[in-house]
């Protein structure tokens, strides 16, 4: 009986996800073929649409920016063993902070607006996650349930605010007043015409900084160590003298604050106003992004890019191949999530045996190897 040997690290981190992605694309191709379209053309359109030209690439990066924030939000909580499904709602209410800063500081300078908006959005988003954190820590209400419920409370609160408080009179569209001056963050297209009309803005640098900060936090600080300990074994962390309940609340606050950054990007970077339902699913896709990225910043950056490309390429595909509806795009995205997230173990046994076979052969070829 041969013992299962773990894969080499490079295969585990790079090869396996790539194979999973390939499998998802092959199945998606079959679905595309079923409705009578050429899957290779479809793949070409998606790739070109997402990476082939400046504006498309700009949109891909823009979507990826949001996915990085929500992916990190889910990942930070996941390291502490908490499943934060509420990034959507946390980003949504954080919009209040972003727009209030944007509107009051509209006559100043974006250098002032940006840090204040980050603080305000992070504070409100963090607060929105702190409540479920508190309920988990002190009352034992499971965060999965409470964060989902807080998504609904968030949407009810925001609809109330947008339709009855923030909406200027005489306007049909339930949005806040628009920021027109310094409140609107600088767009990268103003400096690089390469990006065409893409709404990519300065927040992408905040996203990159967030990736680095989360890496440092999780693997190079005492807080991160405590969070990972809690995630691996709550009894052990408690025994080690860590206050689990306090740590849960801190983790959830950080997680919510990260989700809140979506508001800075969407409200001040793109739409220049607070719109109804502006997180439009970024929070939920963030779960898939974190899952695919194995809760590691590098993985999250890559999977955020992948989902950004699917969003952007998907629209191009719908445009160029009218037979492919937006539901088809969702099917393709779902297949990618299924194979790279939920079924990521599917190819592992096969790959492990392949490596063992390959390893055995190499050893057999080598002179005087310790026999098979």
């Amino acid at each position, binding site marked *: 009986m041969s013992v299962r040997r773990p894969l080499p690290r490079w295969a585990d981190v790079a090869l396996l996800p790539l194979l999973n992605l390939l499998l998802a694309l092959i199945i998606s191709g079959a679905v595309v073929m079923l409705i009578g379209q050429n899957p290779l053309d479809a793949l070409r359109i998606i790739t070109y649409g997402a990476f082939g030209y400046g504006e498309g690439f700009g949109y891909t990066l823009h979507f990826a920016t949001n996915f990085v924030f929500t992916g990190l939000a889910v990942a930070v909580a996941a390291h502490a063993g908490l499943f934060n499904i509420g990034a959507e709602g946390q980003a949504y209410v954080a919009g209040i902070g972003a727009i209030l800063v944007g509107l009051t500081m509209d006559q100043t300078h974006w250098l002032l607006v940006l840090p204040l908006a980050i603080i305000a959005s992070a504070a409100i988003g963090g607060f929105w996650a702190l409540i479920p954190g508190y309920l988990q820590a002190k009352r034992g209400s499971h965060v999965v349930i409470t964060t989902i419920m807080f998504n609904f409370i968030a949407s009810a609160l925001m609809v109330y605010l947008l339709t009855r408080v923030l909406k200027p009179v005489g306007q049909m569209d339930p949005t806040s007043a628009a920021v027109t001056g310094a409140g609107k963050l600088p767009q990268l297209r103003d400096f690089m015409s390469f990006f065409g009309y893409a709404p990519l803005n300065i927040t992408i640098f905040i996203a990159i900084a967030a990736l680095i900060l989360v890496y440092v936090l999780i693997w190079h600080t005492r807080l991160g160590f405590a969070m990972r300990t809690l995630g691996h074994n709550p009894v052990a962390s408690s025994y080690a003298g860590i206050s689990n309940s306090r740590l849960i609340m801190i983790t959830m606050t950080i997680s919510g604050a990260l989700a809140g950054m979506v508001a800075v990007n969407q409200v001040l970077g793109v739409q220049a106003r607070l719109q109804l339902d502006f997180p439009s699913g970024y929070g939920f896709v963030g779960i898939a992004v974190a899952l695919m990225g194995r809760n590691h910043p590098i993985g999250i950056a890559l999977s955020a890019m992948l989902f950004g490309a699917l*969003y952007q390429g998907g629209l191009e595909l719908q445009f160029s191949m009218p037979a492919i509806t937006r539901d088809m795009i969702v099917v393709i995205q779902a297949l990618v999530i299924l194979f790279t997230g939920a079924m990521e173990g599917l190819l592992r046994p096969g790959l492990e045996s392949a490596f063992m076979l390959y390893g055995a052969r190499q050893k057999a070829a080598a002179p005087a190897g310790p026999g098979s």
Partner: protein
Amino acid sequence: MTNLKRHLGALTAGVAAVALLAGAALADPAVIYDLGGKFDKSFNEAAFNGATKWATETGGKFQDLEITNADQREQALRKFAAAGFNPVVVTGFAYGDPLAKVAAEFPNTNFAIIDMVVDAPNVRSVVFDEHTGSYLVGAIAALKSTTGKVGFVGGMDIPLIHKFYCGYKQGVQAITPGAEVIENYTGTTPAAWNDPVAAGELAKADFDRGADVVFAAAGGSGLGVLQAAKDAGKLAIGVDSNQNYLQPGSVLTSMVKRVDVAVENAFKDGTAGGTWTSGIQAMGLANQGIDYALDEYNAPLITDDIKAKVDDLKAKIIAGEIVVHDYSSDNSCP
């Protein structure tokens, strides 16, 4: 490296060919739906039906697109305009801002927007007087009600639907002063447009509280209200399209909002042989853009007496003798 370059070259050529193909369809009209999606059994579907009607009648071709994300509105508009589609019709007030931007970039393309006013020389803004139509069905509801209580089930809790509610309430109270109108909304997320179960439960609750007619201004969710009315032996009022046939005998009438006609007209006027007009196009009672539905399915429910009274009210609104307050003018309802 050169290999890679060759591949890239081939890729670009392929895409250029695709772009060229799209360009060959010059001056075809296009419609871009709102997030609700093409087959929402309501607003967007009405736009699709109007476009399809135009296509079958003229033999023309049109292209359409469903966006998945609010950030794609501007991009989709620009893509259609750049590919030479003309006219480009968008459905829903949320397209207001993106259209204002894109319309300025493409002065030679005609655009039409439903439910919103965009002030540009190449944009036709189609707005509906939902409040007057709602007033009429409110009057019908009050004339039919024996309990003096009627219900209202809205879709998403947004100003546009408040406008429906406000007109409805005025119509009810014009007939029965002091009548109670129970106001409900299905939800606070876009999912509220497609949740017939929740809307049906709200209607049942209204019936339990003594209402005997419920107006569903809830898109696809309204189907649940119609079903609940049938189950309870009460009456419902449909919206947007004529929904009388869905539950014959249980649908008192429908407040029709002819989005399909608006799209069809835009396609007709904007393509060869038509004359395009920009500016605000108000669809109201006078030009049948808004009306209450009367057909063989609800004829037994609408007595001659009711019909005479409602048609009288309609004539008075058209003549300006009755002014129905528009919620969106000041965000409040008297």
